[in-house]
């Protein structure tokens, strides 16, 4: 499934009719920093890779792991097109910016837990990926600030065992 997903993202990235830049301009204003659009696109392109790494680490975590518990919510979230930025024809590639924001944040928390508990050895490329996504996430936050706050809130709640924001999202509306 991740291969199919990668193909879809590649196609959207190359699609001349995709309105990614327009969405960024609408959110950020006219004076968008040079290179921001390309950086955000490259961030979204990392999504299948991040998901692959999350899956690979997820299956080795012990059942008592908090990250593992929240992990099934994360995996389920990724299947849903109706989220903070719906994945539809209008949003195109832009509709995946919230997904990569969440995935990268979850991946970082996952690596932190593994480091703290010394359950698994962290691969050098995973540590590098975390460093890379921290910077890209900051840039994404400048474009989708409200969604970023909600995503952080949702993830924080899930770690506390609270599904309020998560449930609201799929029940037809995010609490404001």
């Amino acid at each position, binding site marked *: *499934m*991740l*291969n*199919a*997903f990668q*193909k*879809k*993202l590649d196609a959207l990235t190359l699609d001349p009719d995709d309105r990614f830049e327009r969405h960024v301009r609408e959110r950020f204003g006219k004076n968008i920093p040079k290179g921001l659009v390309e950086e955000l696109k490259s961030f979204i392109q990392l999504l299948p890779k991040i*998901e*692959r790494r999350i*899956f*690979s680490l*997820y*299956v*080795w975590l012990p*059942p008592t792991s908090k990250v593992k518990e929240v*992990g*099934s919510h994360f*995996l*389920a979230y*990724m*299947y*849903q*097109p109706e989220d903070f930025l719906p*994945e539809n024809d209008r949003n195109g590639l832009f509709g995946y910016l919230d*997904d990569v924001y969440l995935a990268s944040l979850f991946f970082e928390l996952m690596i932190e837990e593994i480091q703290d508990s010394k359950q698994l050895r962290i691969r050098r490329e995973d540590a590098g990926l975390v460093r890379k996504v921290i910077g890209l996430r900051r840039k994404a936050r400048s474009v989708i600030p409200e969604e970023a706050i909600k995503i952080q809130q949702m993830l924080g709640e899930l770690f506390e*065992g609270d*599904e309020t924001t*998560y*449930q609201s999202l*799929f*029940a037809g509306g995010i609490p404001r």
Partner: protein
Amino acid sequence: MLAAFKEELKRLAVDPDDPFHKKISQRIGKRATQVLEERLKRLILAMPGIVKRIHVHWTESPAGSEIKKLGGFVFAYLYHPKDLLPEAEHGLFGYLDDAYLVAIVYEQVIRVTGKRERPLEEADIDYLKQIQASKRYIKAVLPQETKKIDAMVHKAVKHGEFDDFAEALRSVA
């Protein structure tokens, strides 16, 4: 992601170079009729919709419940790049084991929600009918793989033991 998955399945289903018929024939010889192949294809194509229904029930279920655990494993299982029948090698046929797993977990999910005495939605009734009509065909084509999956799900549902699920996921991670 589910939309991309659906598009890919649709594409494979109409791809003249996809080895679906060949793979089925290799497994069951002349019993590979058009009706059988169509049933199997329909179930594979229904998989994204069934996953969506599992997610609906999963979201409504309390933490720690049977549905939460089962659903969690299915969501993880579908992420794997290579399973009992790797998709890259087998094309659409490679999704048959996934479709079977999704179908029988979905039946369990419905069984549990049925216990809560809630009326089934039309979508659930349709998918259940489709699964009932296709299951024995998948078993005929993939006897060993379906036995493994049945045992894995049975152990999880009857005894609350998810070790086989975890092991299956680790073997492909």
